[in-house]
Structures are given as C-alpha cells and as structure tokens.
C-alpha cells in the first residue's frame, strides 16, 4: 500500500499555505497530523494532485485563554497537548475527559485538533465536543477570514463547510467549567476505536435539582454530530428524576435516524443512543462536576 504520486509543498508561513490552497483548490489536500490522511493516501483512497503539508507553519499551535473564559486552540495543536493542558482541564473539563478516547497516545502525538475537526468523521470525538460546546471555527483564506459556528460547519460524513482555498486555523471553545455539569460516553468495540454511538451532555442546574438548560449531542449516529433539541426542551426548567430521564432517553431514541453499517445497525444505534444519552445525563448530575463512563 504505497501512495500514488503527488506534488508536495511544505509552506513555512500561513500566507504561503493559503496561496497554495487558493491556487490548487480541490486538487489539494492539507496534511496536518496525517493520522487520517496518510491511511487514505497509503490505500490510494485519496488521490490528490497536491499535498500541502502545514506542519512547518509557525504560530498555529497554541492553547490560549480568551476574554470570555474560554479557549482559542490553534488548528495545528497536537491532541496530546490538549490532553495534557491544565487550561483545558480547568476551563473545559469535558474536553479533557474525551481526549483519552481518541485513538491511542501515538496517534494523539501527531494528530491535531484542526485536522480531526476538518476531517469530520461522524464518529469522532473532537467534532462532537466542538459541536456540543457551540464552538466557533476560524477559516482563513488568501483573501479572507471568516468565523463559522459549529452548527453550520459539519455537513455530512467527512464533509464540512470549508471551501476550496480555505484552511481551518483556529477553534474557539467557550468556558464550560463553573456551573456546568457534563457527561461523556461512547460505545466502541475496543478502547480507542471510533464510537458506534456516543453522547456528550452538558447541564446547568440550579440549587434545587432543577435543570436550567441542557445540551445533548449525539455522535456516531448520523452524518454529523446532532443535537437532540426535543430532549433538551424536555429537561429545561424541570426537576430531574428517574422518570424524566427515562422519558428523555426515549425522546433521544425517537429523534435519532441513524444508518446501519458493519459495526452496528440503525436499530441498535437508535436504542442504545437513548441509553447512552441517559448515562451521560446521570453522570452529569451525580458527580456534581461531571464524569465519564466506560
């Protein structure tokens, strides 16, 4: 399994990279961590004419606090850096909790936040978290820069709103620490595999066990991460008890419309999606600050 021929560029500035992407458009593929692109090149499933290796561009690898208490993460930030970051643990603990589920540490040594998000595998963790957190994606091109909300970014399997000539340069995530409870869980065949079905739940509660707002994101169940709004509405303003969680679980199952593949059927994903969503809600409630299950 050896790659087909391609032209290779390793720009040393963002401007140079953007010019190359502008010039080559659809003929070009961006090489960041390589953990998704290289297998496809090796298998000749991807046959780009041009590969633009962005690893030599300085200034795209950072985790910086933003004024609103969140974090701005450079697209080229290695997943391992996020995994080890105190700032992430403090401000977005659900992100820190999800990191060990991404592949294995060798993959996270090279894989980047931007790469995973632009690759947009529907069963991947980083797109799901970004989506669940209502993150923002900064897309730069030679002539422009625009900011997209996550809900407008993930279109379908392996397809995002990135236009030819654009490069994802920054991911902005809000603070989800104080006052936020969270749960993160996936069902995989083996640890580190992509999820057959996964859920991220975030809750804001008041002192008396009443839910102020809920955000329930499912992944691995559709072409892109999905929010289950009807379930979120069912929780908002209600005191959360077992019965309500049961109802919410049912609503999630009803709302899901997954596909079947060789790892899991639509029926499985639909029902187990409800189960997992409930578990993440329970984790969010019970541990106070949140927790994940195996």
């Amino acid at each position, binding site marked *: *399994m*050896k*790659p*087909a*021929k391609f032209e290779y560029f390793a720009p040393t500035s963002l401007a140079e990279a953007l010019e190359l992407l502008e010039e080559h458009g659809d003929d070009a593929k961006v090489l960041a961590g390589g953990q998704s692109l290289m*297998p496809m090149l090796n*298998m*000749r499933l991807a046959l780009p004419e041009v590969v633009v290796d962005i690893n030599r561009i300085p200034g795209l690898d950072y985790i910086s606090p933003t004024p609103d208490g969140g974090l701005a993460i450079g697209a080229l930030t290695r997943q391992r850096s996020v995994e080890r970051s105190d700032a992430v643990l403090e401000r977005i603990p659900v992100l820190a909790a999800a990191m060990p589920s991404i592949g294995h540490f060798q993959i996270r040594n090279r894989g980047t936040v931007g790469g995973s998000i632009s690759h947009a595998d529907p069963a991947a963790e980083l797109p799901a978290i970004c989506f669940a957190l209502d993150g923002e994606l900064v897309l730069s091109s030679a002539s422009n820069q625009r900011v997209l909300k996550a809900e407008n970014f993930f279109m379908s399997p392996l397809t995002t709103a990135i236009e030819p000539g654009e490069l994802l340069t920054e991911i902005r995530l809000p603070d989800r620490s104080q006052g936020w409870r969270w749960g993160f869980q996936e*069902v995989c*065949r*083996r*640890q*580190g*595999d*992509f999820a*057959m079905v996964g859920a991220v739940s975030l809750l804001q509660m008041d002192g008396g066990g009443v839910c102020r707002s809920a955000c329930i994101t499912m992944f691995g169940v559709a072409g892109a991460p999905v929010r289950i709004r009807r379930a979120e509405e069912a929780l908002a303003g209600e005191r959360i008890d077992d019965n309500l969680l049961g109802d919410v679980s049912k609503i999630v199952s009803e709302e899901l419309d997954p596909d079947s593949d*060789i*790892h*899991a*059927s639509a029926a*499985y994903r639909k*029902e*187990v999606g409800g*189960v*997992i969503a409930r578990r993440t809600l329970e984790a969010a409630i019970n541990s106070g600050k949140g927790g994940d299950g195996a």
Partner: protein
Amino acid sequence: MSQSDEDISRPEASRMVRGRGRFLDDIKLPGMCYAAFVRSLHAHAYITGIHVDEALKIPGAIAVITPEEVLPHVEPVRPAAPGSSDFARPYDRYPVPPGKVVFVGEPILVVAAETPHIAEDMLDAITIDYEPIEAVTDVDQSLAPGAPTLHQGMADNIVFFREFGGGDTDKAFQQADLVLEKTFNFPRQTAVPLEGRGVIASYDRGQDHLTVWTSTRAPHQSRSVFATVMRLPEYGVRVIGPDTGGEFGIKGTGYPEAIMLSFLSKKIDRPVKWVEDRMENLLACAHAHEQRVEVSVAAKGDGTVLGIRSKVLVDQGAHCLGPTSAGLEPMTTGQSIVGPYRIENYHCEAYGILTNKCPGGPYRGVGTVQGVFVIERIMDMIAQAFDMDPAEVRDRNFIQPHELPYETVAGRLYDSGDYPGSLEKLLQLSEYQDLRLAQQRARANGEHLGIGISCFVEHTSTGSQDYHKRGVYGLPAFDSATIQVDPRGNITAAVSAQSTGQNHESVFANLVARELGVPYATVKIIEGDTDATPFGSGTGVSRSAVSTGGAIRLAAQDIKQKVLELARFFLENEEGELDIAGGEVFVKADPARRVSFARVAASAYDASREVSLPENIERGLRVTRSFDPPHQVFGNGAHLAVVRVTPETGVVKLEKYFVVEDCGTIMDHVVVEGQVVGAVAMGIGNALLEELRYDEGGQLLTGSLMDYLVPTSMDIPEIQTLHTESPSPFTEGGVKGVGEAGTVGAYTAVANAVADALLPFSVELTEPPVGPERVWNMIKMAQGNR
C-alpha cells in the same frame, strides 16, 4: 547440562529485541525489483480482455506476466485429486485464472517495477475486461439447484462430502428425555499474523534453478508444490524460510502468487520481491471458520447425552489450498463434536462447499473451535433444561481416565488424559463456588455476571496413518532431524520444522542438549532452508513438539550410541555402561573415568591426536531420523471465563479467565505458557470481535484492520493457568502438541459465559462473535419470543 526453561538464553529473542530479526521484507538482493498483483474486482467472471500497454510505458516499469504466459507451463495443483483424498471431489487448480476468476481479490496477473510504488502505479494503469457471472456467496446459494459451478469438471460446488459415525442414533433418539435441535452459524475469520505473506523469487537461468524466500511454515512442502506445478525436479528448487512474523496456519502452501512470481523472475532474469499488504492479506490470503452446523441432540434426564446427529456445512471459499484442505474443517468439526464425552451414537454429514469468496485455509483451532462450541453450548443448554450445574452435566458425560485409549464413535483414538480431573482442577483454580455466589449476589443487584466453562480435547500432530484413515494420501506427515556433531564437539540439529514464533531455536536446542547430555550453548538448530534441512512436513497441526521433537530424540539416541561406542577407545576399551552428562562421557560405575564429548567427536573425523579409529568404523558423526506420529495425540483443557454483560448496550467485559491445560509431557514450561496465553487471547478475539463480512455480490466489506478487529491489550483479562501432564503412550517422551488449545477453549468459554450472564433473558446463543450488536439482538429476540 541443559538449562532450566526460565534461564535459557533464547537467540531468537535476543536478535528480535535488537531489531535484528531477518524477516522476508528485510532481505535485499542485488538487482532485486518489486512486484504487485492485479486482482479480480468481481466475485465470478470471465476475463475477456487484458490491457497492459499503458502500464509498461511508466518509467520504472519492467514487465508483466499474464495468465496466457503461465498456463502452458504449469501443472495444476489438484486439491482433491483421485487418490489424494477419497472423499474430496477432484478439480484442477491452476496458479493463474484459466479464463475466469472465482473470487474478489483473486490474483490475475503480476507486474514488476523498480520500486513497489511504481508497481502499484502500474496496477492503476492496467484494465481488465470482465464478463460477470452470477456469484454464489453462501452455502445455500451454492447448493441451490441451477447454481453456477465454480470449477470446470465439477458437477456442482460440493468439494468434499463424507458421512460417518457409529452406534444407533435412531434408538438414542427414541430413548431421549430431551431432544435439542439447534443451528449454529460460525463467522468467517482469518489469522491476521502481524507479518503478511511475502515472497522473493529468484530464477537463475544459468543454473536453471529457482530459489524462493518465503514467509512460510512448511519449506519442504512448499518446495514440492513449486516443483510439481512448475515441472521442475525438486533439486531445481530451493525454498528458504526466513524469520516469520507469525502465521497461525495461513502461511502454508498453495498460494498462486508465489508461482506467478517465479515465472516473473525467470522472464526478467532478476530477483523479484512481493510483500503482501494488509488489505491483500485480509482480502485474498486465506479465510477460515465459516460454517453452519445443524445438530440434533438426544439427552437423558440425568444430563447424559445419548446421541447426536450433525450436519456440518463448511463455506470453503473459492478454492482448497492443498490436499487436506477440502476435508480439513468438515472432518475436524465433525469429529470434534463428541468432545471428551462418552457419546456412543453419532451420525455426521460433513460437507465442504465452494463459494465465490476468498479460499479457505487453516486458522488456529481449525474445525475444533466450531465442534467444541457446539457440544459445549449443548452441555450448557442441557444444564439449563434440567436445572443442573453446567460443570455437573459435563462430569456425568466425561470419558473416564481408565477408559483411555478410547476410540470415539466419530473415529478418533484419544490416547491419554484425565478429563474430569482437568475440570476439577479448574473449579478449584477459579474458586467456582465463590464465583457462583458472586453471580447470585450480582443478579440480585440487577447485574449480569456470567460464568462460562469449556472442556475439550485438541488433536495434535497428525501422522500419515491418520491421514490415510481420513482418506488423504500424498501428504507427508513425518518430520525429520539431522543431528551432526562437528570435529570440535559443537552440534547442529537441522530440522524440517519452521518456527513462526514457537521458539524452536531454544526449545529444540535444549531438547538436543538434554538428550545428549551436552551444554545448551554448544547446540544450534537449523531451520528453514530446503538445502540445509531434511525433508519433512513442517510446522502445523500443533505438531512440532511431537513430530520434530520425536525425530530429534531418535536422532539424538543414535548419535549418543555412536559417541559412547567411540568413547570406549578413549577409556581403555571399557566394557561397562557409559553415559554422558555435562559434556563428558563417563563410566557409570566409576565416574572419575571420563573423556570430553569434544575429544570423542574429534576422533570421528580423524582429527584426534589421541585415538585413531579402526578402518571399519564409519567416519563422521551425523544421523538423520524421522518420526511419523503413529496416532494423532490429544491434549485436553478446561477453561473458565467470567464476564459482565450490560444488556442495554450489549457490551461484554471479560473480567477473569482460568485455564487448566494438559499437553502431555511439557518440553519447555515458558514456551507452553506463552503458547497457551497467546492462543487464549486469539480465541477471545474470535469470540468477541473477529468477523469477515461480504456483501451479496461477493465484495469484502471488512477490508482493513479498522473493520476486521483483533484484540488489543485492553481486551484481555488476567489469565490464570495451571498445567497438568498426561503423557501420551504414542510419542517419544509422551509429548503432545499445544499450539491451538488455548484458542479452542477461549472461543467457547467466553460465549458460554455471555449466555450464562443472560440466563434471565433465556437467549439463544448460537452465533459468534458476541459483540455488542449481536448480544443486544439476542436479548431483543428472546424478549420478542415471550
């Protein structure tokens, strides 16, 4: 002095931790180029056109070999020729498609280029014209009236059929208190050795001689295939097996790629290398284990099994790899179903059926995993029906130790073993009663803890007698060893086996050292070169300890005899008994009188200043002996798995695992333990994860390691083992094989544990692997049936 198993230095390990192994892809020859294969995109199709001109224009492209160039110069392999197997149906297998292809991935032609990248570029530039034919992708389609037949000359797609058994099954069913009728479906699986296949073919036109380096377990059988197919004398072929990165059955013989590469090398007059990539390995190497087994079981109210009727339908894929392949799984499963139990009435119909999928070959636990699964699930079902403990049911059915050797109604002779004893040891090791109590507490808590037992016998080291009984001829089933002592007392033992991870270099060197009474450090094992080793079967069927070990013991005895004879010349013509220990020959009655092994050896080569041997003594110290196991010998085992199942998600977590293993006399404790634990891990993967899937058109859906899942460290729990020994009366030293037993046990113990965990749901568990989707489905179906 031989070393203890824990202390011996293992040269095979020493070079591996340095990264100095020499695997096929590590070998570079002057002038070597690289090959790649054009493979069929269709499951069943005529080839109506081949267009290679564009590919040959690519800079760095060297040549192409097409089927037309090869066909006039080859003999087909006859996997089931008359005389090779009484029960297999004959057809001719050519190393290139004879005008049509029969599975997706079948190699059609081979290209050579200066780099592997360019070789793959050539593939992209070649077009094949196909005329698709209806494909049959499961046994039912294949057997349906009017189904297209895969191979010319065959009336249908049945490549093997045999009916056998004994006793009176009709009577048994009349007397039954319980009749169970079940259908088991086993998934298609493949071995996934971490190193795929690889071949370097180098045809020397000057010498008219072919040298083939190949990652293999059976160099001599490989050579025979090359010689036969390519119409060469055996001396015209040399097969070299370098370090091999695992094979678990599938790097045997009969792969068309190797033949095509040999022709390519001859055509271009250069050595050519092909290294299979992982996708090729999954697509086109060898598949295994896919079967449907239908059984009816008659049982008495006390839990004893009166009789079984079985129908074994093996999905053989598009070809049989070699003379035993056609009957390999059908017969092995058919004969394994009776297990270690006294079942006196049995009838089996065993079929091998061709389909338009990757050809079938052996994968660790071949046929036994399915047979054991069937009988052990049945034992649990009987236990459930009569509200008995599953261990108790087995106990009531075991063949007792004093009854062995025991001829089973399925036609096997069990040599030795204490089956109830193994189970008893297992129950002690696992603290079974405590486990059951823990299970009760868990159930009360709404948790689903399961305990699964698997008791089995495992056939090892088949000899020619057993092959003949099975109706298979022309398959050498002996192994050989040539032991040579050099003039300075160092020893080589060249053997017909080929290690693919079984540590032959250390295990056999230690055996030679023990048998001869010399230091371990003076012995070297030579393997993997048909020019340097004696003819023999090779590795497989868990045979090496028995057959190669047996040959070594016999050869060592002969060498020892001669050495003792020569030693007398050094010991003033001493007539009393002599022996060898610590590298010295000594007089048993007076050990102070001694002479070193090395000094004696020198005399055999006229290299001694002390002793000149009389003329009538044959010079040299070299013996070749063979051992053909007179019978298959049977290890046995008892495994217990503890699982926790989450019904809402179907997720199974393995918590504990226990093994009691009996492989006869143990030759090397460290290696045996390694084989058992490794094989258990493989069986766990088989039970929980591994499944090859095809679509209706015969396209493989599970084409990479992201889809075909093998276990990682996270999937394997702590495995506690206990070894016990029932020496075989039929082998040198009482040794039996052990390579596959762990897989056989684990495949079923895990499944039984899952079924046990879900007892409250009364699930029907007859179809591994028990991944989350399947478990969840089983529960749904059980709930739906209420």
